[in-house]
């Protein structure tokens, strides 16, 4: 349901490509994440968080590697991964814009900000612009409610936001990003 304030979960598509058969050993960076967590019965969520920390999302192939290395059924791995809102299955853009849609932000105008960002970027929530620069997301409260409404850019909080301010923020961020070598 595409309503403002409704968290849209990114679920893997039914026909998700899981990569080639896992003939090779996992890449070293993935092994470095998996090794310390081997045999820990409480580590599944943490494993997925670290993989996402590594790649910015959960590449299906890495999840398969993790399942094999840790001896966990793949179904359980994906069962956990799809349960939580935090996990993504597609690569994020370089700048992650998160509009807080928590109660405090909602009553102070978050829906208008979200709408303006959708219009400005030309994408719905949970999508990435074609140039790979912006990913637009909604979150339910980042704990800055007293400065509502709040928008985050790559984790940095901007309080007392307005629709116009959000548009400027996008412009500034884009200029800064394009200015990078």
């Amino acid at each position, binding site marked *: 349901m595409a309503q403002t304030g409704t968290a849209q979960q990114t679920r893997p598509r039914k026909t998700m490509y899981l990569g080639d058969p896992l003939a090779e050993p996992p890449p070293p960076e993935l092994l470095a994440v998996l090794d310390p967590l081997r045999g820990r*019965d409480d580590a*599944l*969520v943490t494993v997925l968080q670290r993989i996402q920390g590594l790649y910015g999302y959960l590449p299906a192939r890495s999840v398969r590697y993790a399942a094999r290395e840790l001896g966990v059924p793949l179904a359980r791995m994906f069962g956990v991964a799809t349960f*939580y809102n935090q996990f993504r299955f597609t690569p994020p853009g370089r700048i992650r814009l998160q509009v807080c849609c928590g*109660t405090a932000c909602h009553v102070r105008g978050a829906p208008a900000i979200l709408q303006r960002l959708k219009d400005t970027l030309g994408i719905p929530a949970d999508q990435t612009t074609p140039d790979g620069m912006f990913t637009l997301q909604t979150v339910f409260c980042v704990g*800055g*409610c007293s400065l509502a409404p709040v928008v985050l850019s790559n984790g940095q909080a*901007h*309080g007392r936001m307005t629709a116009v301010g959000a548009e400027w923020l996008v412009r500034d961020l884009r200029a800064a990003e394009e200015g990078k070598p």
Partner: protein
Amino acid sequence: MTASIRVGTSTCGLAAGAEETVRALQAAAAQLDLPAEIKRTGCLGACHREPLVEISTNGTSVLYGPMGPAHARELLAGHFGLPGAERPSEEWVVSRAADRRDYPYFAPQVKVTTVNCGVIDPLSLDDYLAAGGYEGLRRALALAPEAVIAAVQQSKLRGRGGAGYPTGVKWEICRNQPDPLKYLVCNADEGDPGAFMDRTVIEGDPHRVLEGMVIAAWAIGARRGYVYVRAEYPLAVKHLEAAIAQAREAGYLGTDILGAGLDFDIIVKEGAGAFVCGEETALMHSIEGKRGAPRMRPPYPAESGLWGHPTNINNVETYASVPSIMTGGAAWFAGLGTAQSGGTKTFALTGAVRLTGLVEVPIGMTLREVIFGIGGGIREDGTFKAVQIGGPSGGCLPAALLETPVDYEPLRATGAIMGSGGMVVVDEETCMVDFTRYFLSFTQSESCGKCVPCRIGTRKMLGILTRLTRGEGRPDDLERLERVADTVRTTSLCGLGTTAPNPVLTTLKYFRDEYTAHIHERRCPAGACAALR
């Protein structure tokens, strides 16, 4: 003369630009050659004046805000009376008194769990110790565990996570389990979207939470503890991890704590974004690395929790109250509150109120005192319409109920709940039907889907509410809404479902005329529903 300058750099401060202010102050102090030490602290609670800057010299201190980076030099030059500089504008001054009582926002508050927030450097164990930290633990370890539990019972401390279960009783049940392996869990999931009490305490005073947990571990006989922090709080995780490392180093965690023969250690677990994980059985599944779906209770966690072992689970604020009970005494703590509930409660006061922020008040203060006395009433001279307490599990109360005391039973009698501390005030511009639709869109998307009444019922309620806000309401919709709400309330598996209808039921009870206007007149009295304009 060395001055100490403190800037609140919690999540709220940073959102207001506190980091820029810190950098500007550092540059200005260097330029003006002032021997000032600039400290980063947690949140004082007066978020509406952030970024907040406190300058202390020789026992006097002045709190300024909001202080943007542009005025840093002017502020320092003026405050220290450098030649040619003007005194800082009175408009910037929040408070000059050491106890802050000259600022009406602070005057009625009683700070217990947040007493150090915004005052000490949260990353400094020395600061915490200088403020009397770990003294409560020392006293607890000098007592038998049973005596600690008795003190907590006498203090009338009740769970701050929302339900208000007596903490001492919970501890006793857990202690009395024969299983020698017991766990301790701190619930820092803070799922209510519009609340930040737990974040403030952890970011601003992490050692207090750890101290409360170690005392609980002593009382219960637990060996291992977890703090489950929600994914959206990276700064809280950072401060907690730092505090745990310091506490291990200093012997407040680990083996043979303070020579009392207590072995206890704490692990931080980051949540992954699921509201239902605040529910205790779901939270434990999540710690175990599973999907965070709740299960039937009983057995309660105190009997069978993590990996089937007895587990005591409390909210952040509950643990944070414990050190003060040990140092201040159970009778003092009980005396702060009401006959049935001791101590203080923090609330995240937000929305259409003039002065937003985190407030801590004695339990039993009325809603009016909190919203009008502390919060200064409605911003831009608007009219109070409702206060939403307890988030998606709570309810909306009208002006007629403003004399209700903030306490578990009186609030429950209104149909709302005490909740974990979210208090969102709304004015005439908010449509209660649309506001209710908002909450249902939240619970509907956060329902884990395990039980049918919650999975289907929240969707049904959301469907009806959406229809109403689009001007497509039917005459029998309210009756249908009430029926579904009642079914979901009575038959859902966990607290998410049983409380999800609360926003619907309270608004139907107190704001029914808005619903009927939507249905029969195709009119939105607040002028908020776009389809009805």
